């Protein structure tokens, strides 16, 4: 077992410490004559004053809030329906797994293709249905460019959320519903007072899990909009990537990396605390 821990330690913790150390320096690979002077927290102060960084942070929060809300609502609805369906479980598993197994880059390109141009299939369908009178050029305005981005994420991960919630639903004792029915509780009251409270742990896990994922979003937006138009759909991970590998500002880029890490780490701690309780509970 020692080699596995050593691998994890070497390849994960060491780089993280290095990122932090690097973030305290001015290090621009395009300007090697500047050397690598220690600048303390200057990179972090720069980040706070950087409008592109604040924009990226805002885009990430917006993306996370919009996509996770949709995924949870639709996922819960699907899970409730699937919990009652007795046939077609195999089909459901397949439908859940295919979007999940497709590389994110590929699903991003599928959605780009569907929304591309004035005569793409989405415009054609919306025109046929009479929803719009004129084709929409989706990728030239920030408001419309977000639509395929969020749809692609919802398409890829809602089935997975539904699966998590379905597992939670199947753990609820059926006799509770029977008791509620005998007491004359309506379907809505059963949902409100039996399903929701007992499903809360599963919902929380799905919520935290998805928020973490949404906060790190990179592949999807890189391949779908490239952060455009301009930088209006650029999330924090993409800005960090550009700072590092396009502009070669390693000091500044590292500071951005540390900020991403701290925020996700905070979220992850909540998740682990939550799981930790389950772990101790399941120990024999």
């Amino acid at each position, binding site marked *: 077992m020692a*080699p*596995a*821990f050593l*691998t*994890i330690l070497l*390849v*994960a*913790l*060491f*780089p*993280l410490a290095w990122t932090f150390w*690097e973030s305290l320096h001015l290090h621009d690979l395009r300007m090697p004559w500047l050397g690598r002077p220690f600048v303390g927290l200057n990179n972090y102060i720069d980040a706070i004053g950087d409008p592109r960084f604040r924009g990226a942070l805002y885009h990430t929060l917006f993306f996370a809030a919009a996509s996770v809300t949709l995924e949870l609502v639709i996922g819960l609805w699907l899970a409730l*329906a*699937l919990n009652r*369906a007795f046939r077609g479980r195999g*089909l*459901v*598993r*397949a*439908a*859940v*797994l*295919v*979007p999940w*197994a*497709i*590389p*994110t*880059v*590929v699903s991003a*390109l*599928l959605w780009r*293709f*569907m929304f*591309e141009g004035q*005569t793409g299939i989405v415009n*054609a369908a919306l025109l046929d249905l009479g929803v719009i009178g004129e084709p929409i050029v989706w990728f030239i305005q920030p408001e419309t460019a977000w639509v395929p981005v969020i749809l692609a994420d919802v*398409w890829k991960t809602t*089935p*997975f959320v*539904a*699966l998590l919630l379905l*597992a939670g639903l199947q753990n609820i004792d059926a006799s509770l519903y029977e008791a509620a029915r005998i007491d004359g509780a309506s*379907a809505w009251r059963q949902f409100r007072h039996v399903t929701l409270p007992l499903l809360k742990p599963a919902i929380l896990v799905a919520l935290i899990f998805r928020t973490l994922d949404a906060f*790190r979003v*990179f592949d999807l937006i*890189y*391949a779908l909009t490239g952060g455009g138009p301009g930088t209006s759909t650029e999330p924090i*991970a993409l800005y960090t*990537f550009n700072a590092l*590998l396009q502009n070669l500002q*390693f000091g500044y880029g590292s500071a951005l*990396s540390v900020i991403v890490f701290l925020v*996700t*780490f905070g979220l*992850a701690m909540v998740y*682990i605390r939550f*799981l930790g309780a389950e*772990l101790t509970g*399941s120990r024999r």
Partner: protein
Amino acid sequence: MKGRKLWPAVALVLLVLASALPFYWAVLASFTPEARLFRGPSLVPGELVLEHYRALFTQRNFWIPIRNSLIVAGTTTAFCVAVGALCAYALARLEFRGKLPLLGFILAVGMFPQISVVSPLYMLLRFLGLINTYPGLILPYLTFAMPLTVWLLVGFFRQLPAELEEAAMVDGASRLRAFGEVIIPLALPGLATTAILTFVYSWNEFLFALSFTLGPERQTVPVAIALFRGMYQVPWGQILAAAVIATAPVTLLVLAFQRRIVQGLTAGAVKG
């Protein structure tokens, strides 16, 4: 009452349709001549051609990224399952101090945002001369693949009754031998599921592959596809053909083992 009976079926049909439609459209479009892709698109197949697939292998050497992806994802998976199995067994069976924090730590490492380690890994790989090489991808892949493997395998080993190895050890087998001859054969389905999931994650990985390769000769499939876009024209037919090829192996693999994979996924996320 009738409506209530119906809505699970409606939801099911919606789910299946919504999941399948974009992919169906992509497959169809990958066989459609370029000139017709944006002229009155229709879900009904019209004239079908193989030109995009042919162009992919004759003009773009698409077999190179396929080869790269197979080597990188395959090596990562083999290494992770071999080393991770021992580590997971120890975590599942042996009692030692700091076990819970260790499990939490492994989980936390698995949830690191990849972007936060790109800069040091880049400098480390540059220092070692490993940028644009296979080890230069496999090494970073271990950061996310190893925790995933260990985490899934701990779950699988826990399900096996401890009496099995205890009996073998009473009969005089060492713990290592009990592990090799009793546990491994029984855990084979779990090991296979873990291997498939690790392979799928490595096959689909994008950020590291984009950051640590420089040119087509070491790019993996997702990177190659994402960089297809030309300066002036987007070769949609070829992009979609490549998308179908990139997706087919993982999809088939996942569908063949779907029941077990769903168990592994939900266990990893819900039960731990």
